[in-house]
Each structure stands twice: as C-alpha cells, then as structure tokens.
C-alpha cells in the first residue's frame, strides 16, 4: 500500500512564555495524523526532574481519555507497565526534560492518530517517547525513561479537529519543535 505524507503545520517555540502548543482547524482530508516532536521545559523546580507531556483533543479537558497500559523503562529500574484504571482529563506522558539542576536534555515523542476524522467512533492511537537525563544522579535514581510503545483512547466519537500539547509545571523552552503531518493511504 502506497503512503503519502504532507506537512500540515509546524510550530517552533521562541521566547519563554509559551505554555501550550495548539494545532487548530486540522484538515479533515487525510487518513491519519502523525506528530514528531522534540521539546524541553523552562521549569527549574526541584519537584520536577522531568515533566509530563499532556495532550488534549478538540479543547476537551473532561475525563474523556483512557491511557491504557504502556511499557515504561526507567533508568536503574526494571521495565514496568504504567496502567491507568480510570478516565483522565488528558493523555499524559512523562517525557519532558526540565531545566532543574542543570539538566540539559530534551524529550522526544512520536504521536500517531489513525482515522482521526472518523465520526461515530472513539479514537485510539499510539505513541513512542523518551527522555534521557544528562545527569548521572538522575540515572541512578531512575529519572530517565523511555516507552517503546504506548496506547491511548479518546472516548468521544466525533472527528478530531484540534490537538494541543502542554507541560504541567512550566512553559516550553525556546527551540522546542512540534511538527504535524497528514498521511494518506492509497
């Protein structure tokens, strides 16, 4: 099956005041959506060795998201599944490098939304993400992590026309990049 991809939009953060990246009015003409992202947070609080990439669809912050289980591998730790047993207000992946303690590394994420424009069907998708700290003590304490595959479910059944990404603790650091692609199967 042939596959064609197009860049729909890209956002690169400048300055230090951007809290949320939003892709609005997403064309409904593709089969699937793919995001490729690299990002870092301005946060310096000691409570946040890393932060959480949170994703919302269509501006919906109700408890409409089910994150399912994913394999999360932490530095100096065993591979462990991360399971949610209740609906949440967002999809949340702990993959943002913060600026705490001189840490310098960004996180990366590949986020896929198949059949995003369908009506009458909940949306299910996959992601892969990673954050590898630059600090030895973080590794020894398990503060580096990757997830080779993660799954999520968004329970409303309408088309997805808007996707937003934000961190929980602080703004996006300048240079963070968010790319949205449309994929057509033919």
């Amino acid at each position, binding site marked *: 099956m042939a596959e*064609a*991809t*197009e*860049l*729909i939009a*890209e956002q690169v953060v400048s300055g230090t005041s951007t809290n949320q990246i939003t892709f609005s009015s997403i064309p409904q003409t593709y089969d699937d959506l793919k995001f*490729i*992202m*690299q990002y*870092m947070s301005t946060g310096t609080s000691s409570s946040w060795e890393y932060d959480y990439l949170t994703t919302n669809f269509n501006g919906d912050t109700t408890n409409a998201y089910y994150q399912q289980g994913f*394999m999360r*591998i932490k*530095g*100096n*730790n*065993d*591979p462990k599944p991360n399971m949610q047993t209740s609906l949440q207000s967002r999809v949340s992946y702990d993959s943002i490098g913060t600026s705490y303690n001189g840490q*310098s*590394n*960004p*996180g*990366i994420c*590949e986020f896929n939304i198949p059949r995003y424009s369908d009506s009458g069907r909940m949306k299910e998708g996959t992601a*892969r993400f*990673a*954050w*590898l700290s*630059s600090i030895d003590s973080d*590794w020894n304490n398990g503060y*580096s*992590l*990757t997830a*080779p*595959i993660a799954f999520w479910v968004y329970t409303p059944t309408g088309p997805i026309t808007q996707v937003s990404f934000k961190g929980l603790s602080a703004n996006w*650091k*300048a*240079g963070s*990049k968010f*790319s949205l*692609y*449309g*994929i057509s199967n033919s």
Partner: protein
Amino acid sequence: MTIGFQVLAKGTFTGNQAAVVFTNIDQSYSHLQFEITARGSAAQSRVNLYMNMNQVTTGSKYRLLGTQVQSSSSGTAEIVNGIGPDSNPAFLHICGNTVQANQLTAVEALIPNYSSTSFPKVAFGKSNACDSSGSGSNQKRRYVDMVYQDNSAITSISWSTGGGYFINGGSYIMGAWK
C-alpha cells in the same frame, strides 16, 4: 501543501563496506529517519551496530536507554541501561554471518529536530537481529533510545558494524521529514 517525508539518499552495500557515511546533510528539514537492512560479516549470530552523530566517537557524549528481548531469556524483557556516558556505544544490533543464509536485519532510527542548535539530540532506535532458523540463542529485538550530548546541528551521520563489514546486498535509506 509540502511533501512530508522525502528520501535524501539511498544505496546498497557493496565492496565490503565497513561503514556508510552520510555527509552534508540538508539542514532544511525537521527530522531525520534511517531505514537499514543489513548483515554483518563477523562469524557471530549478532553484531553491534553503531550510529555516530557528526561522526563523533570521542568525548563520552552518548547515553542509551531502552529494552530488548533476547531469545534465550525466556521472553523476559531486559533493560538496556547504565550505558554511558560513552564515546561510542553499540546503539543497535544486526545479525552476523552465522545465522541462516539470506537473513538480514531491519533497522530503523528517527532523530527529531536534528538541525537544532538549542538542544542535544535524542534518537529513537529499533532493530531485529534474528535467526529465522529459530536455533540462535542470541537473537535480540531491541528498542533503544540514544542521546548525543551536544547542541551542534547534525550535518553528518555514520553507521558502522563491529568486527567486520556490511555484507553486500543490504541496503540503506536516509529520509527526512519536512
């Protein structure tokens, strides 16, 4: 609308190549992706595969984290951790020359925001070094991510194998996401 993914370079391994090096990488794209099918010449069931950003093999700038499943470990996932800082870690694996004939390993890697000068670079990697005869005890399916601790833009990438060369007939693609 702009084409999303484009092939920048591709080829086939010939002449007992010890490495394939991509230089002068176009800086006008956002993310780099590699697709490689390869087999190493070493008389082993599995050999290391190295990816060096800007061809750097000094300075202990790399760290790895991920998981792998090995055929001899009863299906238990192993953690790939504590690797680094290192100057030239084995990122992924390909099959060596003792596995079943005509077997090649599929490898994929993605480097988001490769031209950035704001951050170090992080890469997703996966490889499937297997022996389809089912008799090899050192088969490994690997999902590993690598950080390159340097803010320089990535203008060249080298891929090389441990203890030998790439067997002729394998192939490689470097693509980019606009």
